[in-house]
């Protein structure tokens, strides 16, 4: 009798054991779940309608023809967003049923010979585009732009300047006060970040990054990795201004630390090296955001964000605190202690979250668009703002915007 009982219980337990072991083996990536992360997989099609204004090609195509480098630099999101919307199912040709209106104006495509965009003509260009749409269609005047959105990926968004002090002085272009801005710049309590803006990642060429993938089982033998400037000798010869001194602090404190592979040389194996690093530093530069965040996410390197009060892309959809490590600028001298005291389970969890394909997709602007990519996250963000509040619709003849506000130079026609 006892023999049978024993044999039977052995059978049951073995079956249970096998089941529990199977459950254990399937965990390699982790789903970004919870209040925020599920939203990444939403499909915006059917939840909103976008009307794309037909602007004359001098606002978009001709500018691009003059300088095709705009397609590959980190501000290319404005161009690709336009192309995506033209062929997307959310586009409607009937403006009466549209929830959002998009104006395709490429304000960040006036490049220096080095490839850096000059923002000096951008306010006039934007103003000219808005004048056009307000006179040719009634929808701008209906809400004074509250149901319109613009993509402004430049350093400080719609402040249209690369120097922070000047950008703060200018403030956001007065005509865009009521519109929704889709921008790369995000910093809390800053003039150039309007509430209700959607923060997006800077453009990084997806094919170029895919071409440098290495086998995922390569050991991560670098602890902390960074390549870039520590001092900007051209613009800030004495130091202290560039990156608020944070990058200089990283260099002076950790240049001799063997765990920190940091240098100004740009190697040919940059992407491969990121894939064999555990942490990638993403310190602020002249602006707080950086393409290193996107590169870190794609290559599975945990981003260490050293930029006080930064607002990261899709912050309402991606739980960045669980994925990256935030270090205050004043704590930079203790960076090694901070990073080495993170428990291994936490690091493994972060790596699993980064390995999640929906996380990587959300940071990219692939052509053609794929589900879950950054284009869709932008549309999701716009869809989450719907339905529009009744109060945005202004009564006939009521004007809120001041068309003559701002520096005098901006009022000149473009």
């Amino acid at each position, binding site marked *: 009798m006892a023999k049978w009982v024993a044999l*039977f219980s052995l059978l049951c337990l073995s079956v249970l054991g096998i089941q529990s072991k199977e459950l254990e083996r399937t965990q390699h990536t982790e789903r970004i779940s919870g209040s925020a992360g599920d939203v990444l997989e939403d499909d915006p099609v059917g939840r909103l309608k976008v009307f794309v204004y037909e602007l004359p090609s001098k606002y978009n195509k001709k500018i691009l023809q003059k300088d095709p480098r705009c397609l590959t630099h980190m501000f290319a999101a404005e161009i690709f967003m336009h192309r995506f919307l033209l062929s997307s199912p959310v586009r409607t040709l009937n403006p009466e049923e549209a929830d959002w209106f998009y104006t395709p104006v490429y304000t960040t495509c006036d490049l220096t010979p080095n490839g850096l965009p000059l923002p000096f003509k951008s306010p006039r260009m934007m103003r000219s585009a808005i004048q056009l749409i307000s006179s040719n269609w009634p929808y701008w005047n209906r809400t004074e732009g509250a149901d319109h959105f613009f993509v402004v990926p430049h350093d400080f968004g719609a402040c249209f300047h690369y120097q922070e002090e000047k950008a703060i002085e200018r403030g956001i272009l007065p005509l865009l006060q009521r519109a929704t801005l889709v921008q790369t710049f995000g910093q809390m309590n800053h003039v150039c970040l309007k509430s209700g803006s959607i923060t997006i990642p800077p453009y990084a060429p997806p094919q170029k990054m895919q071409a440098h993938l*290495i086998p995922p089982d390569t050991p*991560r*033998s670098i602890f902390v990795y960074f390549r870039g400037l520590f001092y900007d000798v051209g613009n800030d010869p004495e130091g202290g201004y560039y990156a608020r001194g944070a990058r200089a602090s990283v260099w002076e404190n950790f*240049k001799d630390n063997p765990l920190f592979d940091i240098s100004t040389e740009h190697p040919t194996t940059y992407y491969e090296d990121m894939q064999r690093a555990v942490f990638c530093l993403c310190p602020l530069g002249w602006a707080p955001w950086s393409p290193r965040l996107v590169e870190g996410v794609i290559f599975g390197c945990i981003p260490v964000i050293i930029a006080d009060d930064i607002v990261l892309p899709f912050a309402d959809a991606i739980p960045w605190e669980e994925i990256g490590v935030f270090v205050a600028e004043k704590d930079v001298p203790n960076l090694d202690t901070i990073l080495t*005291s993170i428990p291994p389970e936490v*690091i*493994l969890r972060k790596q699993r979250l980064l390995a999640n394909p929906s996380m990587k997709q959300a940071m990219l602007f692939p052509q053609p668009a794929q589900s879950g990519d950054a284009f869709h996250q932008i549309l999701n963000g716009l869809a989450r703002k719907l339905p529009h509040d009744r109060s945005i619709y202004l009564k006939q003849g009521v004007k809120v915007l001041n068309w003559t506000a701002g520096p005098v130079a901006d009022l000149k026609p473009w």
Partner: protein
Amino acid sequence: MASIRRTLSPAYHGRSLPNGVSPFTVSSPSHKFLYSGNYSSSSSRPLDRFDVGFRRFFARVLYQRQSRKGSQTWRRTIFRFLVCFLLGFLVGLTPMPFGEVEDSNAKRRDFSFEIKANPVNVEQDLSNVVTQEKFVVETVNLGVENRFNFSPRKQLIVITPTYNRPLQAYYLNRLGHVLRLVPPPLLWIVVEMNSATMETSEILRKTGVMYRHLVCKKNGTNVKDRGVHQRNTALEHIEHHKMDGIVYFADDDNIYSIELFESLRKTSRFGTWPVAMLAHNKNKAILEGPVCNGSQVVGWHTNEKSKRLRRFHVDMSGFAFNSTILWDAKRWHRPMSGPIRQLDTVKEGFQETTFIEQIVEDESQMEGLPHGCSVIMNWHLHLEARNFGHPKGWVLQKNLDVVIPFQ
């Protein structure tokens, strides 16, 4: 009990349960115990008994329902329920499979604990980082888990110049595996000419050793000076980053033992030891290095006449020094007279001695390793043909477009 029900139903799937008998037939074998006792002998195999008994049980049940009288059926039912309860209780008590899982977790943690025992205060244990993700940062966690009394290990900085030739992949792989066996902290600086080729990067990446891949951009150098410029690039990197460790020049075509790296860690300022070599005409083995009394260097082994005029008869892989000498002049009471670099203006065979002259003044500042300099720890066999014509890079674009000079 509910969970048992779920797991059992697939197990019983094959069996046809007649007359809609509920899956809650856990009790069936136990009933078989009761009823089949009279019928089958105890010596038959358990599984056969199981099957036979199972079928018998069902026959019994059906038979009993029709034939037995009320009170006895009642008693049997209670008996059945009691046995089911007992069995379920027993199964519920045993926590084995879950315990197994937890145990394995604990084992993993124990293993990682062993690795944690080794790391140095600030310098890390990263050479232990192997392919499995779960060990990636097991070793990172130091300051927190400092239960063991250990003295911090000195960092080794190994400089390897490499260039494209037929056996490059072989040498790099071999050296990479040797360095991987050295207990951390170790930083491997690999210097390549002109550009960091993808093939070299791939080999280095797979080793799992903490490395830095530098590039020496000097065009049209004399063959004998190529190594000099590459080592100077590495020395510049160390100086720029103000690294602290023991610098050792390890060419990729030499053979090293693990004891060598252990001895290196004992160096405080400048260490040297004898290196075994083959004579130029390859007909005998020779030694190049110091003659020691304990750890004091009292003389040198000499070999060829052409090299008699050297001040220090040391091979490039026969000495190591503290990297702070390169950038911390005050600590070593040296005059600050420009960077310490290997010279490309001296003739073949004199690069080592002219370099060492910049680092130490005389033999009193040297240490002989290991004790008595009586053990050979590495071999430098000049087996490669000199001035070998090899196309640039790893991949041949055109067929044999190489000019090999006649000698």
